[in-house]
């Protein structure tokens, strides 16, 4: 890679207390991984694989015990975690919207925290509503409980983008949505990623989603990074678990190809 990586994990490890008397759990174990500028990386793994922990380490929602983690070339331990989080967009599972803030209040929160003047925030909110394809007049003053799941996640994406971050972290952002909404939102985000020149790290347990959206995929299991690379590189991995993960989408694609006529009429 010609440019230095925007995010780099070097032999990073993180353990948690197993609770009363139990042994410590190594949630992330000696992981080294680089994310290049402009790249869309998906981290795939099952529950307990350590993928969410890895993502949280990147904006210091939790701190690593071992190894070194750099963001935009700087060691995160040297950075103020609050400032770091304000310059990294974060999309939470099922939105994580503040129920007592309106849509505009949710989207504008990070600019407000950094002291952006209200009229600029207001203009930025309108711009972001356009970007995530929500009607300004209709949605600006609504509250989260008045929105559908897909609309909430669009607001979540807009909120992550509000402070114009270079990096966006996404924690299973589309997991709780119905397939049609999920597909549309995935495509829309992929387009935003390209258009805004973002660097995105997305967590998912769904290999199909990872294959369709990401440039590169990293596979985690039991705290370890098993493999990483483009879909083509992964398919040559000798790891049996990676092979298992790839088999499902492949078989689904073959069966769907056979079941659905070419003209798409269902």
């Amino acid at each position: 890679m010609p440019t230095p990586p925007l995010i780099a994990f070097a032999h990073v490890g993180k353990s948690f207390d197993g609770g009363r008397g139990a042994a410590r759990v190594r949630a992330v174990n000696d992981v080294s991984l680089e994310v290049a500028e402009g790249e869309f990386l998906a981290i795939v793994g099952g529950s307990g694989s350590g993928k969410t922990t890895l993502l949280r380490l990147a904006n210091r929602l939790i701190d690593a015990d071992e190894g070194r983690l750099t963001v935009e070339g700087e060691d995160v331990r040297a950075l103020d975690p609050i400032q770091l989080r304000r310059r990294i967009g974060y999309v939470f599972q099922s939105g994580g919207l503040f129920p007592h803030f309106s849509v505009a209040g949710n989207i504008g929160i990070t600019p407000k925290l950094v002291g952006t003047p209200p009229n600029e925030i207001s203009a930025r909110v309108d711009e972001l509503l356009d970007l995530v394809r929500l009607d300004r007049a209709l949605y600006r003053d609504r509250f989260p409980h008045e929105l559908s799941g897909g609309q909430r996640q669009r607001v979540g994406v807009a909120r992550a983008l509000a402070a114009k971050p270079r990096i966006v972290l996404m924690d299973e952002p589309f997991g709780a949505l119905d397939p049609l909404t999920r597909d549309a939102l995935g495509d829309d985000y992929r387009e935003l990623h390209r258009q805004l020149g973002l660097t995105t790290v997305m967590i998912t347990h769904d290999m199909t989603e990872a294959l369709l959206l990401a440039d590169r995929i990293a596979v985690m299991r039991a705290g370890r990074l098993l493999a990483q690379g483009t879909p083509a590189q992964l398919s040559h991995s000798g790891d049996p678990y990676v092979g298992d993960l790839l088999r499902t989408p492949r078989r689904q694609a073959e069966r769907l190809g056979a079941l659905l006529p070419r003209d798409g009429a269902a």
Partner: protein
Amino acid sequence: MSFFSDPRWGEALAHLPDYLGNHVRVSVTALALGLAVSLPLAIAARNRPIPRGALLGLASIVQTVPGLALLALFYPLLLALAALSLSWFGIGFSAFGFLPAVLALALYSMLPVLRNTITGLQGVDAAILEAAQGVGMTPRQSLFQVELPLALPVMMAGIRTAAVWVIGTATLSTPIGQTSLGNYIFAGLQTQNWVFVLFGCLAAAVLALAVDQLLSLIEAGVRGRSRLRVALGGVGIAMLVVATLVPSMARLPSGIIVGAKTFAEQYVLSALIAQRLRAAGFSASSREGLGSNVVFEALAADDIDVYVDYSGTLWANQFHRTDSKPREELLAELKTTLAQQGITLLGELGFENAYALVMTRRRAEALGIRSIADLAAHAPGMSMAADYEFFSRPEWAGLQKAYGLTFRAQRQMQPDFMYAAAASGEVDVIAGYTSDGLIAKHDLVVLDDTRRAIPPYDSIVLLAPKRADDHALKAALAPLLGRIDIASMREANLRAAGGDGESSPDAVARWLWERIGAR
């Protein structure tokens, strides 16, 4: 005379601005103090299990202490603190009335506020807390912009509970010298003035309900994010507080403060003293319903100016004497002892209100009992009743020692019900008061204390240290000294217990003055 044309309603209404204003003042201050302490404590302890448990445990224990006891405990505590502060820093403060009431009520308000604040904050969704962190909030921003707003409806419910508790419990601050709506209730219970009791209960209930409804409006506004409702509730509370406080501000107690303990005779005598002082050109107000030890300490601390006590009570309770002396000697010694504290024993009113063993005339004659010594032989088969303090007083120990008295059963009762209980045969003997009009009314007899086990109980007028050289005050009270004979006082007490329009302490005091002044 119908129930509502009773003149006592009008009299009760005349007291309302003073009682209600003071009640609101003490409640609002206590609640504000309670919130100012509880909210930061709850916020600080919310994520620390050990302090949180300790705090909630402590607040729960406070809640189990009966309100009256909690209030009463604060008085001696503050008195000791005031003495310490005076000797260490040269700054004294009044441990009487407002301060102990506010502190006790504030403590009382803490549990619901602490519990609901902690519950509310812990109830905030962990995903929302993570989002607050994730968008770059500092812990402080997360607390004020996310956690507290989301916990607010639950917190408001706690504040409502606290407000209602404080308003209700504030009625119990009367005995420690804080005027409140409880003045109606305490005075009413003692003088059998049910109009007052009812009026006091209704006023406190209406106040509590009004505050509860206004706070519930704010709570609903917070829940439904309706600024209009929050504003309406807030304005309503502010108006209520201002409307009740302003009239009472205008009549802050000034001039001579006359104290009274919690029984009818004391209400009558304090009304009589206040009337005499006003007639002599003083401005005077009464502070009624004070606990027996509170009233003496308040006088010694210059918080009240004058009240009537009884020689034997001071002898036994205040100076812990177990011996008994002839009246003149006892009075002389008491006068010297009181003077050492700067208190002036102005003189005797002329009657005694002593404890005495009392039984029905019929039974006494049938058994041939005339004195306590005669009673001793029959006592093991009899039951006895007395007020709440008698059995723990030195007089009772003295009686037992002098006559070897033991009863089959001992009961404690509200003094007003004691005489009727004796008359109906429910109990055989009671420890009555010699000046009580009910003795004659129920045809009871006082048994002779031939061995003088009970000390004399001359009614005496006491002046606070700061009034020691107030000659005008002494002159104004002089016409009362030695003028109130036992027969007049008994009849006055009987009138005060009459339960009609002529039975208010003021009316009875006027009657008493006419009777003794006419001679």
